[in-house]
């Protein structure tokens, strides 16, 4: 059996810590994420999982530690060393960020087509027909009727808005998706549909995903690896099925035992 694991990780967190004065956001988080891997970060409120996501997406700066990212040219760079323009470009082309509240990740005042096409226009696409064609294609892929391309997101249901947010992020074919409770607040059937979609898309597009969720079932469905956090620290990490089937730490055992049976 040949060793096919030569490639470098796509995203590396090294000793990431963030504190707000005396308030701890997260402490000493480290991991390596490779292409095509989906990692769930689970924990209850206050665990630091959202802080971690914001550190990874450079929305906030760490108090200690660093985030390293392998660019498309193969060079791994410290995100703190990138200029603002470079970061913004990365955020627009290489990364996607799906917010829990779709209104935060969409422009509610412009049409769905414009929402999906915006990133393309931001990276220099100047052909209306092609922009619209790409938008139509992506709406179709996230199971939104392309006939609604000119409708405003305010006319969309919650589930549709969330899928629109996904399409908006995927249009520039990012390699890394960061998701913050993407199914939070959705009806159960709507949630199921979105999860299926995410599952299919991340597999088809070989996306790397960091998924923050408090729902262990979502983690099991969408992720290969899992990191359990509590009070800002990583309690346990490993393969999703291993951590959930054979939890080692007391807190992990508590979380798993607390899942309501269907």
């Amino acid at each position, binding site marked *: 059996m*040949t060793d096919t694991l030569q490639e470098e990780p796509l995203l590396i967190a090294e000793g990431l810590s963030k504190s707000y004065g005396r308030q701890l956001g997260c402490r000493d988080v480290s991991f390596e994420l490779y292409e095509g891997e989906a990692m769930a970060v689970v924990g209850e409120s206050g665990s630091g999982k959202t802080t971690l996501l914001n550190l990874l997406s450079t929305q906030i700066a760490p108090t200690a530690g660093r985030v390293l990212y392998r660019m498309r040219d193969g060079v791994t760079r410290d995100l703190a060393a990138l200029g603002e323009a470079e970061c913004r470009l990365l955020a627009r082309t290489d990364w996607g960020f799906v917010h829990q509240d779709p209104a935060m990740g969409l422009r509610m005042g412009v049409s769905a087509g414009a929402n999906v096409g915006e990133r393309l226009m931001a990276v220099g696409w100047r052909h209306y027909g092609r922009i619209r064609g790409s938008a139509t294609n992506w709406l179709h892929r996230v199971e939104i009727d392309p006939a609604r391309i000119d409708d405003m997101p305010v006319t969309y249901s919650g589930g549709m808005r969330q899928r629109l947010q996904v399409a908006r992020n995927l249009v520039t074919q990012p390699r890394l998706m960061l998701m913050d409770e993407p199914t939070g607040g959705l009806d159960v059937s709507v949630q199921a549909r979105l999860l*299926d979609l995410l599952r299919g898309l991340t*597999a088809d597009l070989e996306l790397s995903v960091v998924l923050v969720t408090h729902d262990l079932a979502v983690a099991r469905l969408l992720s290969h690896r899992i990191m359990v956090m509590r009070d800002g620290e990583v309690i346990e990490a490993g*393969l999703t*099925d*291993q951590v959930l*089937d054979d939890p*080692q730490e007391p807190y992990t*055992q508590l979380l798993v*035992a607390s899942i309501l049976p269907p």
Partner: protein
Amino acid sequence: MPVALELITVSKSFTMHLQGGLRLPVVEGITFSVRSGECVVLAGRSGIGKSSILKMIFGSYRCDAGQILIGDCTPRTDVATASPRRLLALRKTTIGYVSQFLRAVPRVPAIDVVAEPLLGSGCSREDSRARAADLLHRLNIPESLRSVPPATFSGGEQQRVNIARGFLPDLPVLLLDEPTASLDAENCAVVTGLIAEKKKRGTAIVAVVHDDTIRGRIADSVVDLAQFATAA
């Protein structure tokens, strides 16, 4: 034939922190090996840890001590200490697992449940589905059910979908947990036939089987876990 899988003094126990740190031993000192094309059946009373051993080989369970060595190239990979990334790669290329119960993703049709592992290793969607359909046909799952999510299937039907999913890709090591438990005689025969075919292709198989007859048909050797009796 080369040794495809070797367990060396594998031990496991559960520590139940929620029950005051109660320690439940599972297995201790498990040692055996499996060659390519060989089927080893794990035997022992219920609860002795047969399924747990399968899970440890697959990486779903941790083990406290020992080694689980896979492959024939040096150095061999030790599942017990492999990184999550390597384990994921192993599952894609080397180890298949047919669990006792199908964990069905809601809303995914049976044919896609079966085809998924093949898709993951680079096969086209049409190809994987075609091969999945063939296997489902052999396992007597009618065409009408193939586009239905298996959550509503009977236990036996679910198990057959599970088997198809596990048997479809061509992996060197295959773990089977009670593959025939919910099946009638006809389907049992199909499954034993499939196992025989896999052995001919050089697949190393570790199986947990209760039924003596089935065991007789498929086992090249039997590992009785009672010989590794755990300390009470």
